[in-house]
């Protein structure tokens, strides 16, 4: 097995790590670095639970190799709140009960954070389109969409 020494900037902090070629970013985050906020749902690009931001853009961490991202900036759900203060989006999820079991929530938050950055005032359809790759088995989606709408009225992603 070939290993590589790489550095990832995770939530603003540089991390050096050794990864085998076939280790996905998802496994590197969860199993090597302990960022277990990023969830493993399917490992096939279908569910979006593993979504993180790479240089600000959402990607399925189960479909990217850690070694491909040497030197890049990764944001996980742990990196959203600052000094314990939730982002308006996180706060809206809490206020509107957009979370039930919570398994999809980190991925939802990452996709929606990226949406609000590229489009601070999305329509309901814009939100549906942006979250198509994030499956939720509990909420029926409406409260999640409402939370994103609420956050967009309360000043975007931060």
């Amino acid at each position: 097995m070939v290993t590589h020494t790489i550095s990832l900037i995770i939530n603003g902090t540089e991390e050096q790590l050794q990864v085998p070629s076939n280790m996905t970013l998802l496994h590197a985050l969860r199993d090597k670095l302990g960022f277990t906020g990023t969830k493993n749902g399917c490992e096939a690009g279908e569910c979006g639970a593993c979504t993180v931001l790479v240089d600000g853009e959402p990607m399925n961490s189960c479909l990217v190799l850690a070694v491909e991202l040497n030197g890049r900036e990764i944001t996980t759900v742990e990196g959203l709140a600052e000094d314990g203060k939730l982002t308006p989006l996180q706060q809206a999820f809490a206020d509107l009960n957009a979370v039930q079991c919570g398994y999809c929530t980190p991925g939802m938050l990452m996709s929606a954070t990226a949406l609000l950055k590229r489009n601070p005032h999305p329509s309901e359809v814009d939100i549906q389109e942006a979250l198509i790759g994030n499956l939720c088995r509990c909420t029926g989606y409406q409260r999640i969409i409402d939370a994103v709408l609420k956050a967009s009225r309360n000043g975007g992603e931060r």
Partner: protein
Amino acid sequence: MLARPGLPDFEYMKAESAQDVFHLLKEKGNEVKLLLGGTDLFVQMRDRNESAGILLDLKYLPGMKDISYDKKTGINIGAAVTLNQISAHPDVKKHFQILSQAANTVGNYQLRNRATLGGNICNASPSADMAPAALVLEGEVSLSGPDGERMLALDQFWVGPGKTALKECEFLTAVHFPNPPSGAVGRYLKLGRSKMGDLAIVGVAVLGYPDPEVPAGIRFRIGINSTAPTAYRVPQVEELLAQAPLNDELLRQASEEAMKISAPIEDVRATALYQKKMVNNLTFKGLKEVWSQLINS
């Protein structure tokens, strides 16, 4: 212990030059797999538990991520350009709008940040969403091999499900699309099990443009996926449409002809009969939309 098995074993390598690629392909043959976004490759390797000697990443080769537009010759899109880049690119949106429509129907937003045009084309899936649009735009692939570059029309590039005309040691560097005829309007209609995010049960691309030389005054090109071993054009239907004055009845007749040509197989997404009927419906809908856009512009 990993909670899940993860990916089968391989060694990751970044190709620095085309020579690197030829060299490794020559030396190691089937042990080498080529990587762009990995959204097909990783899923297939995991499903089939298929390891590889080397996974050779082609994304960082010069030019692979470039889009260049020329008013005279058309647009060149590097194989590693992502589908989100395609759907957002101003020249694509302006001159090759149907490509940007098609790109937007693939999977979901985060997937499209990785999924590339080159990967969609080289994977050669009969249901590839970029295929019908690429066919009606008469795209050509640039293939790079030890003996140099060659261009090949897309309808000759796909030879069967998952099979391409790539020769040993060759790889795709870019896709070229000539400028569509002036006044062209295009529409890609995709039917999945859900409104968004699913693979195509049937996808139909229609491109129409004014042509005073033909009795109809308009020419159509029609590209269809998911209903034959590869995506395909239907030249007989296109000819039928050109040779008589256009009306709803002719559009209906043409759509039925397209349905007759389609040759779907029963799969997990739909029965063959349903797919055939949907070829009929989507072709009619696409023709009608493009036609009315053309007469209103």
